[in-house]
């Protein structure tokens, strides 16, 4: 079994990135425009990368399946973005942010990457303010902060409940400026369906023009994927309807290893499912846990209204079990506890939901203060449920939200395919087995603004490139492959709809590869997914043609990929005989029911190499913890 080279620079952790930047080779300014860079995805990670690379003078081609870069899923992030500014003078530092992130990730992330993330976090805030991002401010005119799960300091910057929107619009404006300047050419409404590898180097992509149906080919010296996460494998998740795994999955099938696919984050504060035709789950920002108290009845099957349940019958279970973090325990712990009390029959009306109650905060701070902090979140809640959270407690339940797993990358964010770089949620890099709140926006922008401009330059400066043309055989072959796949999907003409398959897969994933997993369930999941995949290729009905806008066809391709990815997630979860972060194996827990890691045998990132659907080889990257001492996570 081969080991992976993470290319972590030598030296003490505080100086690794600085030294590394100095040692990286630079591309002569005059030569930069001779290099073509493809950036797929223009969310936070992709837009910031494309804009920064354009500014440096590279010739950038950016792709998105959206009609505009401003629509990427990043837009929906509500709560905020972390940085180690220590503006609140409450003891924060780069080291503390690094420490919290490594510990929050349950010791399954690479220390060097996390340190760099914490280090550049401060530059991100500076950059965004300079772009005109209207962060929340205090009366004195300085930036305001709030606290978030898994941290005891106030380091989260926010723009009401729409932080992702404002950050993305910042990156979008920087990108728009480069489009205007001609350094970036934007190809929207294009879906990447294959990666072209020539002589071992990533040299291009094949996309479908979603309006005309045409299959198009583009070449470059390097390819950057920033295509987001894969929570939609569960069908119901907090992700946007169109978020999908296709770009990273097709790259995986061309040789990019997929790391830790089973690490998924189930977010504790989402609206509960209301019915069968439900299309997605809405997240209520975790920042609500700052002022909301989580509770259920002490009595099983209690159907009384919240206001009729007296204090003595209420169980504030997070405050009870985790007195020092209380309602602000990390996400995985909060989610699992919600599941536990509901499984006991103590959920709202005995069902799947717990209360998130603001009455104490409203009494303490006044309704106006609560409105200022969470006004738009309360409005969202009311439009969806028809209930007013100022008067009755919210009902919440966990839902799939974020995928820590993704394509394996080294310290330079390069995958196991030379010249293929992966940024943002699409890679596996910084969050280990569990991501802390407000850290994804930070990572996406760190990767795009402050890491890739350096590491990509080094790659270009140290490699020799033969000239390639989209008319050469490798491109034609991949184009043919994509065409064949499209034709095949359209020709099955079976009886079941694409959504029907997706929902069936989602149910398997949620029940057996969800919040709590066990050997038996995972084995069942693997065989059920295999069966479902076979059935899909025999019985799916994809209506319409390939010559114009066909949303059913788009979804069919994505579901076909989920049917392979789902199996890999289950296999990874089955192989990992320990519990860590978002991966909870029922067989491995402490007496108090907490995740029990096995550092001796599983202190590695599992990077899977694709052989064929259902068959993968495992590569291990051993993780060393020199700066944050391995310990049992405790939030008591």
């Amino acid at each position, binding site marked *: 079994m081969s080991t992976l080279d993470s290319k972590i620079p030598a030296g003490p952790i505080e100086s690794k990135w600085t030294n590394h930047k100095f040692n990286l080779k630079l591309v002569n300014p005059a030569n930069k425009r001779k290099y073509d860079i493809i950036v797929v995805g223009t969310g936070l990670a992709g837009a*910031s990368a494309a*804009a*920064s690379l354009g*500014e440096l003078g590279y010739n950038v081609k950016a792709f998105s399946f959206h*009609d*505009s870069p401003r*629509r990427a899923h990043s*837009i*929906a992030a509500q709560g905020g973005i972390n940085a180690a*500014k220590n*503006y609140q003078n409450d003891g924060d530092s780069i080291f503390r942010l690094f420490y919290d992130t490594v510990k929050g990730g349950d010791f399954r992330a690479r220390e060097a990457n996390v340190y760099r993330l914490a280090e550049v976090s401060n*530059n991100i805030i*500076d*950059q965004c*303010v*300079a*772009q*005109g991002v*209207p*962060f*929340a*401010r*205090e*009366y*004195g*005119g300085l*930036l305001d902060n709030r606290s978030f799960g898994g941290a005891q300091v106030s380091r989260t910057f926010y*723009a009401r409940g*729409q932080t992702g*929107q*404002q950050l993305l*619009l910042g990156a*979008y*404006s*920087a990108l*728009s400026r480069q489009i*205007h300047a001609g350094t970036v050419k*934007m190809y*929207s409404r294009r879906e990447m369906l294959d990666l072209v590898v020539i002589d071992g180097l990533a040299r291009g992509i094949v996309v479908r023009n979603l309006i005309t149906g045409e299959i198009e080919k583009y070449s470059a010296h390097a390819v950057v994927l920033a295509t987001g996460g894969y929570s939609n494998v569960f069908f119901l998740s907090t992700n*946007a*309807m*169109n978020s999908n795994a296709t770009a990273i999955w097709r790259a995986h099938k061309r040789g990019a290893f997929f790391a830790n696919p089973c690490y998924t984050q189930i977010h504790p504060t989402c609206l509960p499912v209301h*019915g069968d*035709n439900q*299309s*997605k789950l809405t997240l209520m920002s975790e920042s609500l846990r700052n002022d909301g108290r989580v509770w259920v009845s002490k009595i099983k099957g209690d159907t009384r209204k919240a206001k009729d349940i007296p204090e003595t019958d209420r169980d504030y279970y997070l405050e009870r079990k985790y007195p020092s973090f209380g309602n602000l325990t990390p996400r995985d712990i909060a989610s699992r506890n919600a599941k536990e009390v509901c499984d006991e029959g103590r959920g709202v009306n005995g069902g799947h939901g717990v209360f998130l109650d603001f009455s104490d905060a409203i009494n303490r701070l006044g309704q106006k203060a609560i409105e200022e902090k969470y006004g738009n979140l309360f409005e*969202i809640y009311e*439009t*969806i*449920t*028809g*209930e007013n959270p100022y008067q009755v407690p919210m009902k919440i339940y966990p839902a799939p939200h974020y995928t820590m797993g993704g394509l394996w990358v080294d310290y330079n964010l390069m995958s196991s395919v030379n010249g293929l770089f992966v940024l943002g949620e699409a890679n596996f890099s910084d969050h280990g087995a569990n991501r802390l709140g407000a850290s994804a926006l930070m990572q996406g922008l760190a990767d795009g603004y*402050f890491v890739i*401009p350096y590491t990509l330059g080094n790659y270009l400066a140290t490699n020799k490139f033969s000239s390639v043309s989209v008319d050469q055989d490798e491109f034609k072959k991949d184009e043919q492959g994509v065409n064949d796949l499209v034709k095949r999907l359209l020709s099955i003409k079976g009886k079941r*709809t694409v*959504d029907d398959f997706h929902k069936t897969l989602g149910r398997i994933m949620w029940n057996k590869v969800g919040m709590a997993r066990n050997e038996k369930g995972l084995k069942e999941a693997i065989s059920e997914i295999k069966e479902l995949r076979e059935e899909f290729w025999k019985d799916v009905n994809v209506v*319409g043609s390939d010559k*114009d*806008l066909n949303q*059913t066809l788009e979804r069919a391709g994505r579901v076909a990929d989920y049917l392979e990815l789902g199996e890999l997630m289950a296999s990874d979860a089955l192989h990992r005989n320990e519990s860590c972060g978002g991966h909870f194996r029922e067989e491995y827990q402490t007496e108090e029911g907490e995740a029990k890691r096995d550092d001796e045998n599983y202190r590695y990132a599992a990077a899977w190499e694709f052989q064929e659907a259902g068959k993968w080889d495992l590569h291990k990257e051993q993780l060393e913890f020199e700066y944050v001492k391995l310990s049992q996570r405790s939030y008591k």
Partner: protein
Amino acid sequence: MSGTNLNLKLKVWRQASPKSVGAFVDYQVSVSPDSSFLEMLDEINNNLEKNNQDPIVFESDCREGICGTCGLVINGQPHGPIPRIATCQLHMRNFKDGETIYVEPFRATAFPVIKDLAVDRSAFDKIIQAGGYISVNTGGVPDANEIPISKEIAAEAFDSAACIGCGACVAACKNSSAMLFVGAKVSQFALLPQGQPEREKRVEAMIAKMDELGFGACSNTYACEAECPKGISVKNIARLNREFVKAKLKSQNVEA
């Protein structure tokens, strides 16, 4: 929360391609009041697919009212009858049993129909590309707290920045004017200290592009504000006009 299903008649605009002639097609549905409007369309589409018919093309993504992708004209109103929400946030409990509902795309010369209910709003991107940004490169910027900004100004800039780029303002306007959208972006930067250096150039460039793309003039009927899902105020249009006049007076004239 829930109640008995609603029986509704939908008249949905179907149009095969930008150039073809469209028409309303009738669909009879029975839907839970807890369902969202788009989930109802999902269900219709699922049934169409089961009968080997082409589903209705409509766009949506976040389904939380923030990405700006969805946008339907429902009974003559962009984003439907409830103020201050996007189409995806509209729930069926707001309709009455037996009602007939008309569903159409956002219509404007600058937003050509692609298919059925999907339109092309890339004109908005072009307006932003013309100057809707602050010209700073990555790196080398001052510390975020170096320039204090009062809480009020930051909040006002945020109110303008909350625009989701959906285009309802244009669809609501009888002249298809984009003044609310442009006004919101111009205001955000005009309010902030970081936006000052390019203040005049920005407004001139964005207005020139807006005119070039076929958006109409504003005749102060304020239908845009009424239909805007984010409550972007017409004060932004007033500021846009002031900014434009001031810029013209100084005129540095815009690069092409």
